[in-house]
């Protein structure tokens, strides 16, 4: 009997100690992060987005002084990850990583509440570029434009209303050409194979994705659609240099749930900025050939708004066709 009582006393004491310790911890520790931060990746492990997130995490952990756990949720084309974030508590405990594919989801029949997304920071800014087969008859952008205006060229894209469809549409509009759009729903690698084999005439895609085929001399970049030249093809001029004022940024960034307190956003912004300067991240960027670009909460929010508007217009063009 007394043994049981002793046990009981001990248990109560332990509970008391735990409660006290809990209180102490609560008052000392900063409000954020509260336990593990979940980092949602809307693709499977091993891909571009996945590797980028995993390269950011070590420095973010150190900076936030807490654990950050990557979670891959690829099902339903990323719709599940997106609704997971949209319905999360607005406390910054759930982060989400994506490219502009996020903004294109609603057009692809994926039900995603974009107004529930709070942009936190941009980390990468790549660009579209005009890529043709190495032995294509056009040596310069001008020659290409003239030919494209007179003939209906075949352009590869990664699905109706997908990223590289919009980039091609934007180019077509800018140079007043009419392309025949051919869908390669598996994405970049499939488009570039088709280009290398001569099945299509051009791709309007990122030079980073095409690095191997450009380096080996099978494909050639006519111009990059960004303000500055690209590290993978430093000798290729920008469209602007050639008198065609067109840019098509391709970006990746981090989002959280709308309504997250400003202080939390500021903490995250700082941690991510430090992470983009960490050796893990810079090495990855160098190996992949994608340019690092940091934009903080306000700048990134404004940028995302502009991009959303731009896509709206391009999508309206597709609908008219």
């Amino acid at each position: 009997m007394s043994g049981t009582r002793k046990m009981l006393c001990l248990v109560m004491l332990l509970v008391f100690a735990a409660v006290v310790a809990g209180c102490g911890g609560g008052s000392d520790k900063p409000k954020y992060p509260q336990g593990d931060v979940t980092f949602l990746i809307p693709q499977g492990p091993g891909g571009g987005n996945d590797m980028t997130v995993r390269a950011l995490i070590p420095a973010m952990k150190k900076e936030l002084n807490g654990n950050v756990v990557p979670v891959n949720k690829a099902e339903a084309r990323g719709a599940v990850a997106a609704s997971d974030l949209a319905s999360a508590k607005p406390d910054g405990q759930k982060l989400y990583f994506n490219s502009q594919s996020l903004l294109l989801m609603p057009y692809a029949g994926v039900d995603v509440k974009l107004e529930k997304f709070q942009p936190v920071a941009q980390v990468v800014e790549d660009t579209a570029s005009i890529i043709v087969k190495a032995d294509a008859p056009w040596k310069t952008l001008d020659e290409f434009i003239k030919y494209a205006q007179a003939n209906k060229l075949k352009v590869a894209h990664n699905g109706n209303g997908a990223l590289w469809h919009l980039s091609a549409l934007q180019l077509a509009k800018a140079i007043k050409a009419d392309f025949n759009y051919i869908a390669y729903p598996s994405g970049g690698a499939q488009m570039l194979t088709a280009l290398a084999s001569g099945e299509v005439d051009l791709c309007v895609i990122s030079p980073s994705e095409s690095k191997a085929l450009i380096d080996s001399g099978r494909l050639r970049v006519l111009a990059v659609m960004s303000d500055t030249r690209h590290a993978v093809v430093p000798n290729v001029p920008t469209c602007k240099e050639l008198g065609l004022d067109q840019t098509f940024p391709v970006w990746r960034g981090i989002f959280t749930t709308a309504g997250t307190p400003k202080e939390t956003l500021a903490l995250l912004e700082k941690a991510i900025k430090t992470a983009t300067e960490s050796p893990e991240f810079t090495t990855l960027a160098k190996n992949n050939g994608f340019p690092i670009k940091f934009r903080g909460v306000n700048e990134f929010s404004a940028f995302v708004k502009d991009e959303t508007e731009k896509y709206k217009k391009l999508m309206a063009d597709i609908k008219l066709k």
Partner: protein
Amino acid sequence: MSFEFYTAGWQLFTLPVLAYMLLGTVIGIIIGALPGLTAMMAVSVLVPLTYTLSPTAGIIMLLGVYCGANYGGSISATLVNIPGTPSAVMTTMDGYPLGQKGKAGLAIGTATVASGLGGIFSVVTMAMFAPLIANIALKFTSLEIFAIALFGVTIMGYISPGSVLKGLISGVFGLLIGCIGFDPTTAVPRFTFGEQNLLSGVQFVAAMIGLFGLAEILLASEKIKDLQTRPELFKMQNPLECLKYLRTLWGNLLRSSVIGVIVGAVPGTGGTIAAIVGYAVQKKVSKNPEGMGKGAVEGIAAPEAANNACCGGALTTLLSLGIPGDAVTAILIGAFVLHGLTPGPMLFESNPDLVSAIFIGMFLIQMLIIALGLNFAQYFAKLLLVPRPILNTIILALCVVGTYGVQNSIFDIGTMIVFAVLGYVMAKASIPRAPIVLALILGPVMEENLRRWLSLAEGHVLESLAGAFTTNPIAMAILAITALTLVLPLFQKSGRLNEGMAEHIVGGKK
């Protein structure tokens, strides 16, 4: 390439690299043998873990996983009629019946030797003709891939013993299921009934595990007593027995390996399609086509040689063009990049010893598969000694975990259960299940490439088709063979079609 190039990689084979190679291959075989865990899943999970290893160790280990898993799928296909990986679907056709005859050892031995030899063939061709194969791969445009898929689809009716009609019912049903999801050209959702989870179509691995894995357990639970009292199954045959058959298999192995290398090298295809085409061709040229599907050794050798030869083919495209040949090599790109390497032709110049080490490593991995497979086949087969209720419970758990693991989706588990019920009903009605899987893989490939070719033709379909005789001779040759194999049986005296129909009418209840 000089002789020095081929030996340059040796220096990279330190003891740890060899150890990781062995580890990778063993992990691969085990994961491959477990239903639901696929090569793709294994490689993608392991890519981040290889970060701390040297590039050589990391990449060789992943290659071990890749090749090992492609082979391991045949073990469960043979023992419990559940393809461990999608590419082992065709191995169930003959491997399982042979195992049921008490010759599981022979079946696994054949699969092992065929896989190893197919793999070795692919490595040798890769090392010798990488640039050449890469150029051939680029010749496979939309029309060629459509032709391959169409050829694969034509064997739907003949794929299993029994009624041709039932085979076709199953296959066409699979083609319909394959239409679910985004339209490949216009990206309009089809047959999704507003369900977000169906946008990218029915998850193929889930469907396959349901049809074969869970359905098989349902069937087995009906005849539990039966399964426990079949001592002849437990008596292990010598796996080396397969070497006796080797003499008759050389042509088969060579042909299937060539098919595997080419299909593997063509971007957008993969081991499963290689195995289907390998099996289909074997069935067309076989002296004893009636025996296939009932436990023929040739029916195991063909798909196994083809799907392992596929690894070398896919890697060839990756190394010489920087384009992934199949889904697993697409993930392997990540592993290269992680180590600061860009796969592609420049790798031959920037890291010749690594490329050389990859060739040597691939060769050693295939030898390892043969050695491990033949030595341990009897132990694998001893799995049958585990009481069926326990074994089935473990498989059931693996089916659920494996299905969920593909993309962490609960919805997929539901898909699996639906297909399991379907598979159970089909088995009861003696409708073959393999054609559904075949159609689910080939249907979307066929549609996407046909539609693309049509949009490339810009409305001038007939002119384009006529022009294809000069521009796409490979495609036209495959299409001609397909047409011939469809039409010829109609003119044969005892056409297999008629026979099948007769069997359907007479032997409906078996």
